[in-house]
């Protein structure tokens, strides 16, 4: 089987066109997304915002390939996801996408360094090398001295740093985050956003971040605003700062 590899040269990091998704039985369907068009570039921190239930997580899951759309075209890192088998999707995701979740989703029975090494192990990197690289990244997020501790001994903000290290450790081109700051106080949320924005711009990565949290808006390069399963508007440049300054 051929392992799909990214085609970075081919335009934007993520290009979604006419994507629809509905849930539930035929006679009682929830239209989570209808005809969504969305794009995000390399080196960009792109926020997706909107009221609860507007379809943000659904869109993120479709980009991640953990959810299949009903219709539309999804290109991620130059590859068309609809052409992939489930197995190819899984491999592609493992190799090229990093994840950060609202609930951190660190495994509490493993040490920090083991948690962070998982994406590398899944790529077939040997344990010793994986843990070395994981340790180096933990040091970069300021947790190098706690590499052998367990996640539950850490504060929420520290846990989210570990999750960021885990999302970055295999150097993916695309990082998907769902509400990474909503479980954190504003100060730690600020630190986390700094890390993510830095990670995006420095590595030429694309970071897509779904959020409810107005404190994060000012970090964005662009903001896609959704409502009721549709994209309302895409803000960039000065419009982002204007939007961030508004009361929410």
């Amino acid at each position, binding site marked *: 089987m051929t392992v799909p590899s990214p085609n970075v040269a081919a335009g934007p990091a993520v290009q979604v066109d006419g994507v629809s998704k509905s849930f539930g039985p035929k006679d009682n369907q929830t239209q989570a997304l209808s005809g969504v068009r969305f794009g995000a570039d390399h080196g960009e921190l792109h926020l997706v915002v909107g009221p609860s239930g507007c379809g943000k997580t659904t869109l993120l899951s479709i980009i991640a390939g953990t959810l299949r759309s009903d219709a539309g075209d999804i290109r991620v890192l130059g590859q068309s996801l609809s052409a992939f088998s489930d197995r190819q999707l*899984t491999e592609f995701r493992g190799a090229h996408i990093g994840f950060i979740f609202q609930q951190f989703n660190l495994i509490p029975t*493993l040490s920090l360094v083991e948690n962070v090494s998982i*994406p590398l192990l*899944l790529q077939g990197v040997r344990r010793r090398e994986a843990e070395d690289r994981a340790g180096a990244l933990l040091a970069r997020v300021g947790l190098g001295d706690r590499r052998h501790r367990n996640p539950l001994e850490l504060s929420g903000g520290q846990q989210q740093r570990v999750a960021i290290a885990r999302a970055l450790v295999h150097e993916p081109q695309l990082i998907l985050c769902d509400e990474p700051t909503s479980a954190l106080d504003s100060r730690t949320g600020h630190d986390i956003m700094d890390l993510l924005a830095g990670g995006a711009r420095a590595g030429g990565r694309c970071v897509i971040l779904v959020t409810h949290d107005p404190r994060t808006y000012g970090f964005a390069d662009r903001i896609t605003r959704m409502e009721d399963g549709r994209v309302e508007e895409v803000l960039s440049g000065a419009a982002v700062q204007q939007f961030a300054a508004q009361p929410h």
Partner: protein
Amino acid sequence: MYHIALKMLMADRGKYIMLVGGVAFASLLMTQQNGVFRGLLSWTTSHMRNVRASIWVVEARVVTANETKPLKDTDLNRVRSVPGVDFAEPLFLAVTKARADSGGEKPVQLVGLDASTLFGRPPVMLEGDLERLRLPNAVIIDTLATVRLGEGLGRPMRVGDTFEIHDREARVVGICKTEKHFFGYPYVFTTYDKAINFSPRQRKMLSIILAEPSPGQTPEEVAARIGRETGLHAYTSAGFSQATTDFVWANTGIPASFLTTITLGFIVGIVISAQTFFSWFLENIRHLGALKAMGASNGLLARLLLLQAFTVGLIGYGLGVGLTAIFGLIVLPFEKPPFLLDYRSLVLTGLAVLLICLVAALLGIRKVSRLDPAIVFRG
């Protein structure tokens, strides 16, 4: 990833101990009960090891070594004349009553051997002289008999002591070691003619004919030929043991009661282990979902679950069987309860444990393969 899977399993100490404990308990109960059962069963065939002969000829209707029917005296010569029989000797075998000085009546297993050959002699002499068995009134008793018949004396019976069998004096000329019998009666060896004198008169006294095949012939061939030519039932020693245990299986409640315990152990083991494994699994399903989102394939997760299940199985099985072995080592010297741990019981228990693990792992695999990795995005 395999070390990650093992750490995830073992780091939850409480659950891990429950899991291993469940399997160990099931393994212990299955092998221990099986061991006691096999031990008891082996006691039903002790005659074959205390009175040794290649071929046992009995009355045609006899199906167990513990219930003989008398043969005609002429049957002995009929067996002797079957081609391939090297020699054949009579054996007297009956439970009878013995009375020691100032002691009560005690049932004993009286064994009468052919006086000239002493064929069927006790396997291990501890004291005294086998040859003196030919003296008047002479008997050789086993260690259990020294205790039982010595109760009135306040000490074990010794060589030179006397007691009565059916009001006739018996004098101890030797002490032997035997394997305990299911009925619990001590063995008293004497010669065939004295055994008859010790017993209340019956028309026919010959219980069993012991035979050996001529050189170059197998016991199986010769036994079959004796059966054909005399119409008697001729067993090999192993065949007689088998027939006897078959009889226990078919006609007593003993196997059923042990099987109940063993099955119960199996079920309790499954329930504890599978239940714990499943609740462990449910606690970790979010993490498994996260692994899936991060690119772990269904195949990899299945292998991890199998590894976890079989690790628990192997350690639990080892512990359970180890405990059984310790139990065996402790009780064996006392012969209470009897104990025989054979490889079949180990293999069967191993297979049962394998089954438990496989079922638990398959339940997990089924669930994890249907697990939607998108759950990790939900709060």
